[in-house]
């Protein structure tokens, strides 16, 4: 997006490595020497083949797993503190909704854990369901909703405590192409309305390019960042997907994924 991000840092990873089964025969270096800085309000995608550590990187940032080396700061504090203080919201490929709760009470979950009063969290949940255009489904059960709708509920839930950062692990990976494109527009709209910083893991090059200010390209064995592709396509709309600049950026990311070039590949900035 062209909206100038502020200079404040949302996420700062410095020298992060993650080794699984250290010292054992099946030792795997999932992440090696990762330096990544995400500005406040920035949309950054992590892309790469399976096993490149993009999900692991997201989990390290979320403090769901600990780095073997290096430091992570989220919102200016260590990752653990950021998690404890709910400075980020998370969405996964699976919506991970609880069947025994209504849609509204699923969105209320993080607020409930924070000890919000019933009235306040109901009001907040309805506000969020309004935002993801599911207010009419508040008292439905998750299984009555389509996959895309379930994912919108999950996004609403991740926004519940109004964290400055969203961590998204292939949230649209299980959706069909049409739904997926709709969800992408939806996410950009929500980002526009809320000004969140977003780190988004995906397999899809067009998805990464369409959504992001920067695409971080990773490669496996050991998982590391090989390229960072800035994307400057201006405000997105349906025409963006057919613009030359869009395809240029897609090509730049694809070549980066193939290992062409070194360092930073520049996508041509173009008018849409």
């Amino acid at each position, binding site marked *: 997006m062209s909206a100038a991000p502020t200079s404040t840092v949302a996420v700062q990873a410095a020298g992060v490595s993650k080794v699984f089964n250290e010292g054992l025969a099946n030792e795997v270096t999932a992440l090696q020497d990762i330096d990544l800085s995400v500005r406040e309000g920035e949309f950054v995608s992590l892309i790469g083949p399976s096993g490149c550590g993009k999900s692991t990187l997201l989990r390290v940032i979320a403090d769901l797993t600990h780095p073997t080396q290096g430091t992570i700061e989220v919102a200016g504090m260590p990752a653990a503190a950021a998690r404890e203080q709910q400075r980020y919201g998370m969405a996964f490929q699976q919506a991970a909704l609880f069947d025994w709760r209504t849609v509204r009470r699923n969105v209320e979950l993080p607020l409930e854990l924070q000890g919000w009063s019933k009235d306040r969290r109901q009001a907040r949940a309805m506000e969020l369901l309004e935002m993801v255009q599911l207010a009419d489904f508040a008292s439905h059960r998750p299984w009555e909703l389509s996959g895309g709708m379930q*994912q919108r509920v999950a996004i609403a839930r991740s926004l519940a405590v109004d964290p400055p950062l969203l961590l998204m692990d292939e949230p649209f990976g299980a959706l069909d192409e049409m739904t997926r494109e709709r969800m992408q527009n939806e996410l950009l709209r929500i980002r526009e309305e809320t000004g969140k910083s977003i780190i988004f893991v995906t397999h899809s090059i067009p998805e990464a390019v369409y959504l992001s200010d920067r695409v971080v390209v990773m490669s496996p064995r050991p998982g590391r960042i090989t390229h960072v592709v800035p994307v400057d396509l201006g405000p997105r709309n349906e025409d963006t997907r057919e613009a030359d600049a869009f395809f240029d950026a897609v090509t730049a990311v694809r070549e980066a994924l193939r290992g062409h070039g070194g360092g930073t590949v520049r996508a041509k900035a173009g008018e849409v």
Partner: protein
Amino acid sequence: MGGRLRSVWPPLLIGFLFLAAWQLLVIVQDLKPYLLPAPSLIASNFFGDLGLMSSTAIYTGTTALLGLAFGTILGIVAALLAARFSIVNNIVTPLAAGLAAVPIIALTPILNNMFNITSRTPRVLVTVIIVFFPMFVNITRGLLQVQPVQLELMRSMNASPRTVLRILRIPNAVPFFFTGLKVAAPLAVIAALVAEYFGGPQEGLGSRIASSAANTAYGRAWAYVVASIILGLLFYLAVLAVERWTAPWVGHRRST
């Protein structure tokens, strides 16, 4: 709902045809009641003394219900401990499996000696032991088989293990609880009934089936068997009703 109703008719029809064939067989072959009493004879015994039938069933049903209740509570407590502490899980699970392999009902005469044979206690105890295993195994599975992504979500929201238990594991175990209960409830009736064959108070179904058969009142013995079947079915249907009422989400699994 309409589909449910339609699915009820075929078994009813088969049941009716089966009874008709049975009646016919008895008449045509002129079978003696000690071999096989006619459905009409069983029915006249059953309906002829409906009061006694129901009071007898209530006696055994009470034993079964007490055993089911205590066995379920025991199963829940053990499962919660097993889910919380893997040490408990490692100790209790093999023990429970061992317990399931013991022919519990054969222990009834011993339990009768250990406890007061004139009381209900040994029978309830047998029922408790029978009920415990399916309840414990199913609830433990429900508490532990949580989607990894749901656990990550809870952790991302900074939930303590206790909160995870309350918000995620226990609700997740509810369908498993009912699976266990659907097995355990009819088993409780069978256990309570069979335990009565080994002496003690005579007002239960098991005692009356045995004494009727011993007194060549075959129609009556079979009438008590019918009452036993009805009792077992009632237990099962009661579980279904409670499940529908308290956990309407059971049976609905979403795709993602």
